[in-house]
């Protein structure tokens, strides 16, 4: 008997105009952690959706325990012991943790939910993954990381033996990532088979045993990770070599830029001040929840400030709404693309032009079709967005490609200050390096570039200066030359924990 509990056999999936998966075959060893990597749009999420029953393949099948099978909905998959944990979690925020865990098979007596039994069972499940959460907490109250844990616990209550993760760490803090890894290793120790999708190379090499690489919907290679170097993985993913991805070149600062003085508002513990020059790339590092996004939203007028001044190129600007901000030359590429970025039911073209088209309209009112086509085409080419056409609805694009379109929206504007909140989240290595190049070029042309990132190497790699935020305030501002990973991390950690460790 082969040791593979899970295999993909010539799996194909075609959407109108897109071949997302083409003849993909590989096997996953039982009780191993198997990485799945590939560029944005390579077909990773599609493969997982086939595994979860959300999509039916247009060709081929899954082989589980030697049996070929095709799932028609998620119930089929659960029955076969398969659970997929997506980035957007499928839980009900208004319900309690316990109810979420047992949704669909709540313990009951004569049709009435047995709350005692429910709480006991829930507590037991949560203990299994080492979480001490009160089962009656409303799920929506939990931070994202814990909600993810609940989702894992839920998969286990259904008796899942094969668990797949689609970019689970992209909005987790470092510490939460460690927790998650412990649990995933635990799953492996208990004999579960884990499929793990991520764009973060370090995670893959730290966590996984084997790897499958996809490119353009085709299977490129499956092998032991120990046999591969990072460069080899990148080369197979992207089909080319990547040089230094940050591509940092020092630029002279040009003065002017963005100055923030005593800005206060929701999410900030105390008023924040900093000044970033035109032509500078100014990084913001901090743990998730340190108030970086809140600060950006305040500068951008997306949240109402209670005090403070914002100056652009030496002139104070009154920003009461994003519209004002854009008019004063400030734009924000938001962190949560699903909620704040994309208009899912509209095309790539419309999503790209959503903001800049106002200024390009004839007489301020009529859409300039020629410009719209040209601009959308230019952004799609510049950022290598994988889309069958400009008319494709953006919701049909892969996650990373959606992110690129939103970035393209803001590159369509002529700006003085660009605020980028986690611009490379969910973006593949190849595209990342292009985005870094674009940032360098923006800075070179005199734009003040502000980058919020939770990835230390990224902040260190691109920024001229780095502000570290901690618990709703700016803890320090460090020059590139003086900054080290340890120092930034130490500055970012909450004081109590810093002392404790």
């Amino acid at each position, binding site marked *: 008997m082969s040791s593979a509990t899970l295999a993909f056999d010539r799996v194909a999936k075609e959407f109108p105009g897109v071949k997302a998966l083409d003849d993909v075959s590989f096997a996953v060893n039982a009780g191993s952690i198997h990485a799945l990597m590939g560029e944005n749009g390579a077909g990773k999420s599609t493969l997982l959706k086939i595994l979860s029953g959300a999509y039916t393949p247009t060709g081929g099948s899954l082989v589980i325990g030697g049996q070929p099978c095709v799932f028609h909905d998620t119930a089929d998959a659960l029955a076969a012991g398969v659970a997929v944990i997506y980035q957007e979690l499928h839980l009900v925020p208004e319900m309690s943790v316990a109810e979420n865990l047992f949704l669909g098979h709540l313990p009951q007596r004569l049709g009435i939910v047995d709350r005692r039994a429910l709480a006991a069972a829930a507590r037991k499940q949560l203990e299994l993954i080492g979480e001490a959460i009160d089962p009656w907490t409303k799920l929506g109250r939990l931070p994202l990381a814990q909600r993810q844990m609940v989702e894992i616990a839920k998969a286990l209550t259904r008796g899942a033996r094969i668990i797949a993760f689609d970019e689970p760490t992209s909005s987790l803090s470092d510490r939460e990532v460690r927790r998650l890894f412990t649990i995933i290793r635990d799953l492996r120790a208990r004999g579960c088979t884990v499929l793990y999708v991520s764009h973060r190379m370090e995670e893959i090499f730290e966590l996984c045993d084997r790897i499958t690489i996809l490119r353009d919907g085709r299977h490129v290679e499956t092998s032991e990770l120990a046999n591969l170097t990072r460069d080899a993985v990148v080369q197979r993913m992207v089909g080319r070599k990547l040089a230094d991805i940050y591509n940092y070149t020092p630029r002279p600062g040009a003065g002017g830029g963005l100055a923030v003085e005593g800005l206060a508002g929701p999410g900030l513990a105390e008023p924040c001040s900093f000044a970033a020059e035109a032509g500078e790339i100014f990084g913001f590092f901090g743990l998730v929840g340190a108030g970086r996004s809140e600060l950006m939203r305040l500068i951008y007028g997306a949240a109402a400030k209670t005090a403070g001044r914002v100056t652009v190129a030496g002139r104070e600007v009154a920003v009461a709404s994003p519209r004002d901000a854009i008019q004063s030359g400030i734009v924000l590429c938001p962190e949560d693309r699903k909620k704040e970025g994309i208009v899912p039911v509209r095309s790539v073209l419309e999503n790209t032009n959503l903001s800049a088209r106002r200024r390009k309209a004839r007489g301020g009112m009529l859409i300039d079709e020629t410009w719209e086509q040209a601009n959308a085409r230019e952004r799609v080419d510049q950022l*290598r967005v994988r889309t069958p056409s400009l008319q494709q609805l953006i919701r049909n694009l892969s996650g990373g490609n959606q992110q690129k379109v939103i970035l393209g929206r803001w590159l369509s504007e002529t700006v003085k200050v660009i605020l980028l909140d986690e611009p490379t989240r969910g973006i593949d290595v190849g595209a990342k390096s292009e985005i870094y190049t674009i940032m360098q070029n923006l800075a070179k042309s005199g734009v003040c570039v502000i980058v919020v990132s939770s990835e230390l190497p990224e902040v260190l790699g691109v920024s001229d200066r780095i502000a570290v935020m901690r618990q709703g305030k700016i803890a320090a501002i460090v020059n590139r030359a003086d900054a080290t990973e340890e120092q930034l991390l130490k500055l970012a950690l909450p004081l109590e924990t810093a002392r404790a460790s």
Partner: protein
Amino acid sequence: MATTDTSPVSAAPPRPSAASRFFDKAGMLLVLAILFIGCAVGVDNFFSWVNMKGLALAVSMTGMVSCTMLFCLAAGDFDLSIGSVVACAGVLTAVVINHTGSITLGVLAGLGSGALVGALNGYVVARLRINALITTLATMQIVRGFGFIVSDGKAVGIGREAFFTLGNSSLLGIPTPIWITVACFAVFGFILNRTVFGRDTLAVGGNSEAAHLAGIAVDRIKIVIFTAQGVMAAFAGIVLASRFTSGQPNTNQGFELEVISACVLGGVSLTGGIGSMAFVIAGVLIMGIVQNAMNLLNVPTFYQYVARGVILLAAVLFDRWKRRKQ
């Protein structure tokens, strides 16, 4: 550049077959064409000049108001108050004309009342963030009540004959209200497709948070749309009063549902972000043709209600099925 090699931007994708693309695009238009030909062949007197004119006149009201309702739905909202506005504006116009003897003042009063109600709806929905369903459910009753109060619950006959030309005159053999409706289709279709306002409306309906962060003045768009909707409904009410030569406080109960049905039949999404004028016209016409054919076939009114509901449900299911298939 950090890369040492470049790969093509995107591989040439396989295209779906021309037939299936046509079917996807043309769905409701196809249904309309088939329905029309079917009725022309199968129903006596359907395809006659007189009946065609009657049919067009019958849908002209729904047609006009569905133009603004399309915007309202596209922006992710809804307006239930329009039936009441139609009635109230008609009555108010009649009363003002009778009191002042001035047609202009009467029409202005009618339009003004619609604008006021619309602006109120818009303000409450956009600024106070009250759900549009509840807001317009409330104004629907308030405005209906005002109509009764102003008219004392009775039809108000209008004393100035010149006023009747609006609803009862013809141009090139086609009644004026039909011309007006056609003009509305053209103007609002153009606004939706070719202006920043129209595209922004769809973005607001598709994801209002994203639209706001992209610098679109979400609140202003909503208020403008609701106000336009009120004015349009009032205008339809004035045309109706002119046709009937009186303002009737009881008229057009359930009109809002008729208009929303036509829009939904035309593929406008109730959750916002999706809608096109061509399809709304198709929806309006399908509703009108079915009604007209049933009248010609002497189907009793009670059954007509059932038939209309069934058609709406069937259309929505058809749409869902089409989307599933993709």
